[in-house]
């Protein structure tokens, strides 16, 4: 092992030869120890492809864990707040998990192959957590991050692109369904999941297949407005979709130094994922039950519709009396909806009982000077963008 950290290079994903070729800007960032593009050409162009064509993103750095064993089903049900006891084979579920204080550690997706085999995908590394949680369960947990190559293929023409690539009957796959394919001689798992709030898929395969898969998909989408997209464009689409991001919209419980910064699911709009009536115990259940019973949740995470067109990035939110009631965690001008939107963490009752007469203080940079804007906001559903095509079965196809 190279013990001198100064000279430990970031890892390259199995798609690196292709993503680096596609990069026009040479802008990269460190995602989970891998170097991946923030932007290939311009973020606006990439965003537009995601909303009007097919966008391709290298997802490999995402943490992936394989959970195997006779207790696998019981174990994942114990690990997360959602009731997974009735989950069907070959489906995917959106999940969150908490620590003993009922504070959210991360969100992610769980893929069920069978009662004895699951895959967990998430942002924050949790191998130790899985391992220690597994005490008493007959399961083994394995970090598959480096051994699984993953691509997100998202956008209105994504289904057509993948059909051209060789994914037969893909249009029949339901949202949160998954299907195993063999394409060009390689096994490829395709799930109808994604982070853009639109029609889209994620592909999981052996790293040896990565370059072939990338090339074949680019070829398959040639006439369907295909384009690789980076982190910045993804950030735009996920805000529009109202998806939350760990350590951006809330602090992961294990990462926050200050206990008051930790958030329960009820405080980040994830209460719907907490099934307190689940028969078996799950990590954090006692604390969450208490919070629910006493109703002492302190914050909430809401969507804001903001007057004007200046994004409220990092803005403090005030009430009528100019008292500080929260902060914007993510904000953008949405080109698709022509709306100025944001996600904000507010102190209750703001956001829950009081939804009007709140204000964002926006500092808008104009050629080395800041213009201070006092913009009226309205609390709205966090899911700003959710087109009908997102959940349509069969999925829309284009020539």
């Amino acid at each position, binding site marked *: 092992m190279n013990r001198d950290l100064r000279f430990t290079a970031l890892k390259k994903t199995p798609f690196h030869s292709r993503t680096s070729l596609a990069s026009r800007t040479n802008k990269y960032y460190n995602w989970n120890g891998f170097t991946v593009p923030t932007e290939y050409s311009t973020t606006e162009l990439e965003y537009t492809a995601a909303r009007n064509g097919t966008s391709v993103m290298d997802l490999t750095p995402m943490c992936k864990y394989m959970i195997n064993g006779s207790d696998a089903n*019981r174990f994942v049900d*114990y690990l997360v707040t959602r009731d997974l006891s009735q989950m069907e084979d070959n489906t995917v579920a959106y999940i969150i998990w908490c*620590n*003993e204080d009922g504070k959210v550690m991360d969100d992610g997706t769980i893929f069920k192959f069978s009662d004895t085999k699951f895959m967990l995908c998430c942002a924050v590394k949790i191998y130790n*957590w899985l391992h*220690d*949680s597994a*005490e*008493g*369960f007959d399961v083994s947990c394995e970090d598959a991050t480096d051994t699984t190559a993953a691509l997100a293929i998202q956008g209105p023409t994504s289904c057509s692109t993948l059909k051209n690539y060789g994914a037969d009957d893909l249009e029949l796959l339901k949202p949160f369904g998954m299907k195993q394919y063999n394409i060009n001689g390689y096994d490829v798992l395709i799930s109808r999941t994604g982070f853009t709030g639109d029609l889209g898929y994620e592909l999981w395969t052996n790293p040896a297949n990565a370059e072939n898969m990338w090339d074949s998909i680019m070829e398959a989408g040639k006439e369907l407005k295909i384009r690789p997209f980076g982190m910045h464009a993804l950030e735009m689409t996920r805000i529009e979709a109202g998806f939350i991001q760990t350590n951006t919209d809330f602090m992961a419980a294990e990462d926050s130094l200050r206990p008051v910064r930790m958030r329960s699911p009820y405080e980040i709009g994830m209460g719907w994922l907490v099934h307190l009536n689940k028969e*078996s*115990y799950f*990590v*954090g*259940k*006692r604390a969450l*039950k208490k919070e629910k019973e006493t109703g002492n949740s302190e914050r909430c995470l809401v969507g804001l519709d903001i007057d004007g067109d200046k994004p409220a990035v990092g803005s403090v939110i005030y009430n009528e009396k100019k008292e500080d009631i929260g902060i914007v965690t993510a904000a953008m001008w949405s080109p698709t909806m022509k709306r100025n939107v944001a996600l904000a963490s507010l102190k209750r009752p703001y956001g829950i009982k009081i939804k009007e007469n709140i204000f964002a203080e926006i500092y808008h940079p104009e050629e080395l000077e800041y213009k201070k804007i006092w913009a009226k906001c309205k609390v709205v559903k966090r899911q700003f963008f959710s087109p009908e095509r997102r959940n349509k079965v069969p999925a829309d196809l284009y020539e």
Partner: protein
Amino acid sequence: MSDNYDVIVIGAGHNGLVCANILAKKNRKVLICEARDNCGGLLEESITNFVPQIPMSVSSSLGGLPVKYKAKSSIALSESGQHIRLVGNQHIDHKVISGFSSKDADRYVEFHDKMSSFSKALGSFMMASPPRIMNNTFSDYFKLFKLGMNVRMLGKKKFNEFARMIGLNIADELEDNFENTLLQGLIAHDAVLGSNLGPRSPGSLINLLFRMATHDNSIFGGIYEIDGGSKAFVDTLLDISNKNKVEIKTSSSVKRCITENDKAVGVELHNGEKIYAKKIISNADPRSTYFSLLGTENLDTDVKRRIKHHRSKGKVAKLSLSLNKQPEFINCDKDDLESRMVIAPSIDYIEEAFNPSKFDKLSMEPILEMKLKNSDQSNPALDIQVQYASYGAQEGWDNIKDNYVDAVIKLIEKYAPDIQSCIETKAIVTPDDIEKNFHVTGGHWHHGEIQIDQLFMLRPIPGASQYRTHLDGLYMCGAGTHPGGGLTGIPGRNAAQAILEDA
């Protein structure tokens, strides 16, 4: 579901019995389920030697506990026959030590006073239930504040001294004070007794303070023998149980707690029988309480981590020798033989005995605490606590037991040359045996180390102090809780109080 009982106590160790009786006296209908076919747990001739006195606070909550004690002196045996016998009385002990070193004698009185005042400051805290650090309630902070005040009231100088000493090892402190290595060895022996520490391990000093706090705040003054032995003590507890109508089911090992809506509502025995009650109390050690009774699938990950890291590897074995005649201990008179005889001739000797135990191995020259019984009768016996007899010894207890016993006897031979010829039978109980036969994970004296990270409100683990577990309705009353093991009954009493508070 019907509540047949108000309370079920799992385990009839002395703490379980104390707890059950206090509750029964408050008109609770109590059942005890004990895995073994007899009661008392580790309170048994084959285990315990010398004991502290049950404190007033415990016996009075039982409406009196008619157990008689005999005070015992302690003698540090020396191969040369220059033994030191201390009785726990300052004047007498001063005189005895003067015979070896007048400097040591004066220092001993000073040292004892200092330790005694610290132990007294801990005292009230020892008796009470510790604050729960995860509660953030006023009364919990108040308790912490009071402990701080108790120590602070000793004066600034002593407070600083206390702060200095709390993480210290006993060897440094003894070597700073005394020149006689035998005296050093005797005190160091008591500082490490029952623990997984050597005299040079940090924290061995607080171990001694903890011991003193339950032994009349004295180093050698609060050491007793039970009149009539352990059996008399257990019988007394059973008499009281009878009077208080505590039901006891022996040979009834509890498999798990039955829960409903995440609350303990009963127990299931290994034979499948289910019994229900409003509250369940476990006299079992923390690990088996959490991992077996509560069940790993009902625990938060963080709690599992804490229990997994809970240190509870036992280090003491008990060797019982039945004798056909009384052995001749070199240069020992009748009073000496009646004493608690300790073979731990110096700090270095103890540390050497401890060294292999760091690697879960055995030293063939361990430290010993011995009790000669029935010395005036035809059937004398020698009961020996053998320390650093590691739980799960790498050598494998099955392979090495006989050799180990022989080594211990060879060691005693140096002090009593005719011991071999006196021995009729020999029986050793190792920590592994204790785990198996007494159902104590790791076979630990205190059901878990007495060390700074497992003390007070951290005992047995953070979030589970105050005798309550993480499961509503399930409590703990054994040596694994505050203030730890030994025949004090304090955990049992405090647990009963916690339950009465919650009712």
